[in-house]
């Protein structure tokens, strides 16, 4: 049997909706697992990439220092890196905070927010530092492919993965390109 394609996935400043859509390929998952082995991924709950992998799928944009670290590690270890979904490609919904200062955002949530008790801005040293703006993945590292959609449809995932595994151009047909 040919060696399986190693795939790692993660969600940065995303909602895991793209991962849900990947699972929406339904029974095709069985076919996929014949040829793919998941490394770090919320699907198998592995927290670290074990080593170099063939394909990395990243959902979500970059909103804090930990996101930057994980993204750079994925770039280092993934032969091919894919930005998945609107947040990864454009910053998406989280980037709607970019029109405000970080101070305004934090105060709105933790000081002036409805029902806030013991108002203070969280400052535990374990919390990753927030960036001034939420950024798409291609602002930080080189991205090889982009799968647009909020989320990309299960068919878009399937098209990309099967084309990629067959060594073909994984560009989406226009009918599978959606930004919503």
């Amino acid at each position, binding site marked *: 049997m040919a060696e399986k394609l190693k795939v790692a996935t993660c969600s940065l400043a995303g909602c895991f909706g793209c991962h849900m859509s990947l699972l929406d390929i339904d029974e095709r998952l069985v076919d996929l697992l014949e040829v793919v082995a998941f490394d770090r991924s919320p699907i198998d709950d592995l927290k670290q990439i074990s080593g170099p992998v063939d394909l990395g799928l990243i959902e979500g944009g970059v909103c804090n220092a930990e996101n930057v670290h994980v993204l750079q590690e994925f770039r280092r270890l993934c032969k091919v890196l894919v*930005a998945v979904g*609107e947040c990864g*490609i*454009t*910053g*998406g*919904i989280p*980037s*709607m905070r*970019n*029109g405000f200062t970080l101070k305004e955002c934090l105060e709105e949530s933790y000081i002036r927010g409805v029902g806030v008790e013991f108002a203070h801005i969280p400052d535990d040293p374990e919390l990753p530092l927030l960036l001034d*703006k939420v*950024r*798409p993945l*291609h*602002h930080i590292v080189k*991205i090889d*492919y*982009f*799968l*647009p959609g*909020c989320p990309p449809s299960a068919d878009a995932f399937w098209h990309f993965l099967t084309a990629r595994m067959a060594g073909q151009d994984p*560009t*989406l047909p*226009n*009918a599978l*390109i*959606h*930004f*919503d």
Partner: protein
Amino acid sequence: MTNAFHLDGLEVPFQEGQTILQAALAAGRYIPHLCWHPDLGPHGSCRLCTVVISGRPFSSCTQPAMKGQAVACRTPELNGMRKAIMQMLFVEGNHHCPSCEKSGNCRLQATAYDLGMQDSHFPHQFPKRERDMSHPDVFLDRDRCIRCERCVRASRIYDGKDVFGVHGRGMHSTLAVNSPSGLLADSQIAPEDRSIQACPTGALMAKRVGFVVPIGERVYDREPISVLELRKYAAEEVHHG
């Protein structure tokens, strides 16, 4: 003898006074466009309809068709440049399709699909722009405005109100509202105005109708804009004789 030019090697007949874009659409040949509207005349600002004639680029919405012209349109180079124009339009505004009421009915988005745009390529600018929610029935979200001036023209020509104008230059240009306060609430705009229908993005919209048709069942969810435009144009041609 009929007047005709060649578009990507195929003959396109034209009537005296028609632009290349008008003649091409009438002949069932799609050229991507955004700022042009059949009822509003040419504007020549978005450059999406750019074609090459004798080695020189022209906007086909302003260039008169002439006998014997050899016009290149759907070449890999021009399609690549069109995609780059679209990507620049997306990164210089704040186009959050997943949370936009216009998604699926949006010409900007549909044209991006049609050009195979899967990424934004350029760095996003995340500009800070003013929103105008002052009017009870209409809103203006400048984050989504591409300054094509379709609303400016429609308001002047069809609504007879002259509600809009563009002030400032280059990336600092913004859509201005012609009212004493500069707000929509003090302008003459009404939700049924042609200026609102003319907007190719979600910048100018009537309130409380954004989600009447669910996402996934909207105009460009069902059919690509290139197919839809040609059918619409053919129907209008028959209507006008």
